C-alpha cells in the first residue's frame, strides 16, 4: 500500500488570494498552462493570483507521463507536485476549489465572478481552463453514468476487478486506459470507429496483454442495461452488421472538449468551442489572454500547455506595462 501525500491540500495555504484588491493579472485554471503562467508572471514582478478548481488539471488523472522533457518517467501526481511546489516557492496567491462563472469588462478592469458569488478585479486575465472528457453522445450514456459508464480509468478501474470492460477510443488516452484496465479487469475490449492513432510504443505495450481484444472500424450506437449497464450495441462499419458486446463497464476516452463555456460571450471561439488565439496568446479581447488545451493551438500536451502558459504570461506582462 502506498501514500500519495499532496502537501497543498494539507498545509495551510501560505498565501491567500486577497479578494478586495485589483490584481495586475488573474489566471483562471491551475493545470500546466495556468501554473506556468503564474511562474512567469510572478518572476516578471506582476501582482498575480491563480483561481482554479483542481490543482494540476488533467495531469492529476494521468497514470504516467513519459514525454515531459527532463523526466523519463513521472506519475502525473509527481509531476503536478513538482509544478506546484515550484510555483508555491514564489508565494503566488492561490484560490483553490473555486470556479469562475463569468468574466466582465468594466471600463479598464475585468471583474472575475466566482460561483460563490464573489467578484475579484484585475487589469488582465489569462484563461487556462483546459478541457474535459468528450462524451459519445449516444443513447444510454448519461443514464448509465456512474452505473457502468466512466470517464476516469485510474479512479474507477479498481471497481471493475475481475469484470468485463470496454474502452471507447483509439488515441493515446484510450490505449493507456486499456493497458491500465487489462491489469484489473477479466477482459478489455477496445472499440474504435476508425484506426488506432495512438503512439506505436503504447500500442505495442497493449498487444502484450492476452485479455485484450481490439475492434476497429466499429461504431458504438447505444449503452444497454437494466439498473446497471450490461453491454453496448455496436455496428461494424464495413459489413454494416449490428451486434451486442456484453460488459459491466464502458470507459469513454474519445478526446476532450474545451472548458470555454463561461467565456463564450466574451471572446471569440472556433467551431470546436476552442478560444481563438494568435501566436502571442492574445484573444479577440484586449487584456484577455488564453493558453493550453482551452485554445485552438494544435496538439494537447502537457509540455505544449506549459509553454503556451509561459508565452501568455510574457504577452500579458507587456500589455500591463503598456497600461502603466
Amino acid at each position, binding site marked *: *500500500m502506498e501514500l500519495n501525500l*499532496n502537501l497543498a*491540500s494539507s498545509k495551510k495555504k501560505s498565501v491567500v488570494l486577497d479578494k478586495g484588491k485589483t490584481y495586475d493579472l488573474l489566471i483562471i485554471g491551475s493545470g500546466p498552462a495556468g501554473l506556468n503562467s503564474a511562474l512567469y508572471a510572478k518572476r516578471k514582478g506582476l501582482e498575480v493570483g491563480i483561481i482554479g478548481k483542481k490543482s494540476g488539471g488533467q495531469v492529476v488523472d494521468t497514470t504516467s507521463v513519459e514525454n515531459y522533457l527532463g523526466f523519463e518517467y513521472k506519475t502525473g501526481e509527481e509531476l503536478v507536485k513538482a509544478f506546484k511546489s515550484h510555483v508555491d516557492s514564489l508565494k503566488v496567491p492561490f484560490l483553490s476549489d473555486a470556479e469562475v462563472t463569468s468574466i466582465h469588462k468594466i471600463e479598464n478592469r475585468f471583474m472575475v465572478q466566482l460561483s*460563490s458569488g464573489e467578484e475579484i478585479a484585475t487589469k488582465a486575465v489569462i484563461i487556462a481552463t483546459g478541457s474535459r472528457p468528450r462524451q459519445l453522445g449516444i443513447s444510454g450514456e448519461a443514464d448509465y453514468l*456512474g452505473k457502468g459508464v466512466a470517464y476516469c480509468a485510474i479512479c474507477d*478501474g479498481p471497481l471493475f*476487478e475481475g469484470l468485463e470492460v470496454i474502452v471507447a477510443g483509439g488515441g493515446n488516452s484510450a490505449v493507456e486506459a486499456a493497458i491500465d484496465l487489462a491489469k484489473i479487469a477479466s477482459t478489455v475490449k477496445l472499440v474504435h470507429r476508425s484506426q488506432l492513432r495512438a503512439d506505436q510504443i503504447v500500442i505495442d505495450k497493449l498487444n502484450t496483454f492476452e485479455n485484450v481484444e481490439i475492434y476497429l472500424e466499429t461504431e458504438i450506437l447505444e449503452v444497454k442495461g437494466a439498473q446497471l449497464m450490461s453491454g453496448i450495441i455496436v455496428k461494424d462499419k464495413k459489413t454494416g452488421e449490428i451486434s451486442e458486446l456484453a460488459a459491466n463497464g464502458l470507459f469513454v476516452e474519445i478526446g476532450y472538449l474545451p472548458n470555454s463555456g463561461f467565456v463564450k460571450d466574451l471572446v471569440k471561439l472556433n467551431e470546436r468551442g476552442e478560444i481563438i488565439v494568435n501566436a502571442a496568446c492574445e484573444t479577440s479581447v484586449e487584456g484577455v489572454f488564453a493558453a493550453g488545451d482551452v485554445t485552438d493551438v494544435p496538439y494537447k500536451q502537457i509540455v505544449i500547455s506549459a509553454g503556451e502558459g509561459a508565452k501568455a504570461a510574457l504577452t500579458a506582462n507587456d500589455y500591463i506595462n503598456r497600461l502603466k
Partner: protein
Amino acid sequence: MSLLNEQLQEQLREIFADMKDDITLAVFSKEDDCETCKDTLSFMQEIESLSDKIHLEELDLVKDADRAAAYNVVMAPSIVMLDGQKNYRGVKFNGIPAGHEINSFIPAILEVSGAGEALPESYKVKLNALEKPVNIKVFVTLSCPHCAGAVQKAHKLALESDLIDGEMIEAQTFYDLSEKFNVSSVPKIVINDQYEFVGNQPLEVFLEEIEKAQRA
C-alpha cells in the same frame, strides 16, 4: 509494515504543528473477517506517534458495541475523529485512508483540531436551517486523485452542523455496501441513502442534495 518513510514523517510533523486542540482517533477493529484492520491500526499508531496532540483509542466493533453505536459505526476498520472535548463531530473514515485518501485524512485532523478555515457565511446560514439528521456517504477508491476533495467537503459540512454525519467509505473493502449503492464511479456521494451524485462537485451541489433530503 510501515507506511510512512522518514520524509513523509517529517512532512507530517510539520503539518501537525499547525494543530490547535488535541484530537482522538477512535479506531474500530474486529477479530474475524477483517483483512485491513491490522494495517489500519498500525497506520494510525504511526500517525499518533507524530504529534503529542494526537491520541489513539483502540476499540472493537463487537466488544465496544456501545461506543460503536454512539458514533454510528457499523463496519470495521472504521476511524472516528473526536475533538478536544472528545466529542464526535461527524468525521468518520470506513476503510484505511491510504493512497490518495491521505489527502482527506490529514486535513480532517487539522479541521477537527480547530485549525480549519471557516466556511463562507452564506453556506452557514443554510446549514443552520437544517432540521433533520443528514448522513453523507462518500464512496472512494484509493487510486482516485479527486475523491479526497469530496470527502473533505463532506467532513467540512459535518463539522459545521451537529446534524450532519460525514463518512468516507473505501469501496473495495466494503464491496457489499458498494454493490448495494451501485458504485461504479467514484467519488459517489449518497445522502440519507437516497439522494446521490457522482464526482467531486462544488459545495453548492452537496447543499442542494441535502436540502432535497430535508424536504423528503
